């Protein structure tokens, strides 16, 4: 097997994992197996969508973020947060309190990512006017979707919008602004507050660019807890007057479903949820659908409001942001400008993304002849399997097991049904059968002391 060259933010805590296989069955790319009573993620197949984390009953799946204290490695510590962050707090918490506490706990500057949406939006519309691009354009916004395309739909890599994300554009803007204010670049640390695991992976191993402009990524859920407890303790310094630059309505709603699709030209569709996106990309790849200009695809239902690191319910987050839009509309004309328009030329020149390289991981072998042989073998094995996808072998489906077998990662006796057949033929005894089950599920399951 080739060495994995992609960083993954989703990790399994072996201490807490009970090997229950919920994650294995939830994984849309079939990247998880159970072995020795623990879940194992295949780095080549995982796209960091986080579906496994949602279903884990014991919170054994965690996200490897940067330590909060890393911010103190920099003299100027910039928090860059998505609008969903404010949506985590109850109605009675004001945005200005959140800003104030963010300063109190150590950030020197606090900015919202979405301020960069308007400039991206107009760049997308210009990009759409380009006649030699592949249609539909697929949004580059969701990092889990970009990885999904690289791994499962490699023929669509050229359809990905070759423009950066709002968070990266916002980071470029604020960094340049501070440099222009006379601050040295190496004293500036930009920390993105993330609602999802995929974004952490995108920062640690970026696609379409050499190095991420963001210096660190902080788990939104952890930060929310830290900020909210400070607010509860009353540690809000009213002398710090934040300078919130109000955002346009469409900027605030950009990360939600249809936020982007409703703002670009032509026939657009917004698709959310991993399974929905996969079903649709399958059709796009076959050209079963035509005449679509722009596809907004998000791994999470309700877009970023559904990110796994959100603390609040996704629908309540959307509702809060909608209320914020309404409040903004009431105080029209009082918008504090961020000054981003002065940097528009610089940002437009720097938001171009490089090539998105396919990294198809579905092949059975890199040599076609061998792959064909393996496939024939796998098909022969599959017909002997029960086809009920029970998962008792530690693989998510009978087909997955048959492919694991030809790749040399499993044997037919892993199937409990095949075991019965082998026992009836006297090829294995009861003890061996139990030993196999122990190997997959750990030795607690047979002893009846799993939990």
């Amino acid at each position: 097997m080739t060495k994995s060259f992609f960083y993954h933010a989703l990790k399994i805590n072996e201490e807490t994992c009970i090997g229950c296989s919920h994650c294995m069955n939830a994984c849309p790319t079939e990247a998880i197996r159970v072995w020795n009573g623990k879940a194992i993620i295949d780095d080549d197949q995982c796209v960091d969508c986080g579906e496994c984390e949602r279903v884990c009953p014991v919170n054994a799946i965690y996200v490897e973020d940067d330590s909060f204290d890393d911010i103190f490695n920099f003299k100027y510590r910039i928090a860059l947060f998505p609008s969903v962050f404010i949506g985590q707090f109850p109605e009675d918490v004001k945005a200005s309190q959140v800003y104030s506490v963010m300063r109190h706990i150590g950030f020197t500057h606090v900015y919202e990512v979405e301020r960069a949406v308007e400039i991206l939006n107009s760049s997308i519309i210009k990009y759409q006017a380009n006649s030699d691009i592949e249609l539909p354009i697929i949004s580059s916004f969701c990092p889990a979707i970009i990885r999904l395309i690289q791994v499962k739909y490699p023929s669509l890599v050229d359809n990905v919008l070759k423009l950066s994300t709002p968070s990266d554009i916002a980071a470029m803007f604020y960094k340049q602004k501070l440099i222009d204010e006379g601050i040295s670049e190496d004293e500036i640390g930009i920390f993105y507050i993330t609602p999802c695991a995929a974004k952490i992976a995108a920062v640690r191993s970026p696609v379409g660019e050499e190095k991420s402009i963001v210096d660190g990524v902080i788990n939104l859920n952890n930060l929310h807890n830290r900020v909210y407890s400070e607010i509860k303790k009353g540690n809000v310094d009213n002398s710090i007057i934040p300078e919130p630059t109000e955002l346009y309505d469409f900027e605030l709603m950009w990360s939600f479903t249809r936020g982007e699709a409703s703002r670009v030209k032509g026939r657009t569709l917004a698709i959310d949820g991993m399974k929905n996106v996969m079903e649709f990309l399958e059709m796009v790849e076959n050209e079963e659908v035509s005449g679509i200009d722009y596809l907004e695809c998000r791994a999470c239902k309700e877009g970023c409001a559904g990110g796994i690191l959100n603390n609040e319910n996704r629908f309540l987050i959307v509702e809060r942001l909608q209320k914020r839009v309404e409040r903004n509309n009431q105080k029209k004309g009082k918008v504090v400008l961020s000054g981003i328009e002065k940097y528009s030329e610089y940002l437009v020149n720097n938001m171009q993304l490089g090539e998105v390289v396919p990294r198809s991981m579905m092949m059975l072998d890199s040599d076609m002849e061998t792959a064909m042989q393996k496939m024939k073998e796998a098909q022969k094995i599959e017909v002997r399997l029960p086809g009920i996808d029970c998962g008792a072998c530690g693989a998510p489906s009978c087909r997955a097991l048959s492919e694991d077998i030809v790749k040399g990662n499993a044997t037919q006796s892993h199937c409990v049904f095949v075991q019965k057949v082998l026992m009836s033929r006297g090829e294995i005894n009861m003890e061996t059968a139990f030993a196999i089950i122990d190997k997959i599920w750990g030795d607690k399951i047979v002893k009846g002391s799993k939990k």
Partner: protein
Amino acid sequence: MMKLDYKIEGGDFTNAGHASSEVKKVLKKLNVDPKITRRVVVSLYEAEVNVVAHAYRGEIFVEISTNKIIIKLVDEGPGIHNVDQAMEEGYSTASEEVRQMGFGAGMGLANINKNTDELNIYSEVNKGTTVEMITYLDKN
């Protein structure tokens, strides 16, 4: 070499695309270049829809080897009166019913032609049509 075959029912638009999706899965597992896979799948999908839209029933025979992919669609149906005309973009004999379902724009055979290295059509009126599509894998 590997052989696959699939059956198609005329008028069953719900399942049009089944064979192309299956063939696509196979080609991905065989590490066929994504661009070539896409061309094969796009032309197969078009051809599948043609059988569903025009014929009574048909069968798809796929032969995959390391240097080429041959796909043959054999149908029982009305046949094509004038193959050259059917190849023209925009030419269609699809019924109003079929068009209302979003098919029958008359791009089918032209699109297939664009996406295959070799296209052979044999047709007999009132009997059926055989479409053979060949894609070579080892050109560079």
